[in-house]
């Protein structure tokens, strides 16, 4: 795929899982952040093509970080990845063509489907996607 991704989650396990699925699909992970504050800083520095963003995090939560990223770049592609499978999360991105949401736990299929949708990629763009 060749797209550059920033992974944001306070859990190293969650970041490792997302990284594994994305790298297998040919995406480049350009940075990892462990809270919302780091996410905003790294987004500004790295200008990634896509951000995967956890919601429940210390310091600044994911929704606050999402809104801040939106202010800085209204066209940034952001996928909220959270165990809070609730209406208010879905509504945050419901009318946002550059926003997505997948609940934890997720499979590589779930994640890559959301990634492809946001980045307008075909399945043929990656060669080693696991279901």
């Amino acid at each position, binding site marked *: 795929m060749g797209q550059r991704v920033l992974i944001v989650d306070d*859990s190293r*396990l969650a970041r490792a899982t997302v990284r594994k699925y994305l790298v297998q699909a040919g995406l480049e992970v350009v940075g990892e952040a462990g809270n919302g504050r780091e996410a905003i800083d790294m987004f500004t520095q790295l200008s990634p093509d896509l951000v995967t963003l956890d919601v*429940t995090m210390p310091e600044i939560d994911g929704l606050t970080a999402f809104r801040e990223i939106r202010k800085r770049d209204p066209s940034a592609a952001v996928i909220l990845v*959270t*165990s*809070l499978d*609730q*209406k208010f999360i879905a509504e945050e991105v419901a009318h946002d063509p550059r926003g997505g949401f997948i609940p*934890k*736990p997720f499979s590589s299929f779930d994640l890559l489907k959301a990634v492809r949708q946001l980045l307008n990629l075909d399945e043929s763009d990656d060669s080693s996607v696991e279901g």
Partner: protein
Amino acid sequence: MTSWNLEMDDDQLDSLKEVGNVGAGHAASELATLIGRKCVVSVPELTCTDAAGIGEFMKGPDTMVVALHMSVLGDIPANMLVLTRRSHAQLMLNYMSPTSAPQAEQNEEAFKLALRQLGEVLTRSFADAISHFLGTNAPYAFTEAINGGKGGIVAGVFPASEPQPGPYMAVHADFFDEEKTIQGKLVYLLSSRSQALILERIEQLLG
């Protein structure tokens, strides 16, 4: 609360927290659906504790508390607890059924039955999410609603007549609605054997 040497590295502690995060997030989401309000959870914490220490999870004065308790069997045996003030438990039921919720002061038995049903839904949601995450089998043994002070909760969850293996690793997160009209704690209690099983499973998943 007694402390023990955790004997786990940072990655292992992080993994247990994430497992708790997945379970607590789903339980809070189930509660949100039931009460029609947004519910969130805090970042999970880990505490190594004995049975007596469970009562200390409810901070503040020793007021009446409700513990919704479920034992999970299967691949990774565990205890799950939803701890909340009795007044908050009543409010949850009122939000669920504004006109027909059983009121504790009028019908204690109906109140306890409704809480037991609520506890079953929340703890099952917690257990199912973890089971799905880890790819494990998690049949439920039973669910109960225990009313009492802190000591009463401990005695209810761990009857004196039964052996109390310990220490436990408690993975716990606070839950609350947007206005904090209801608050409580979700607790996932693991024996050392169950902790090891989870960590083994995670290693397998990460390949």
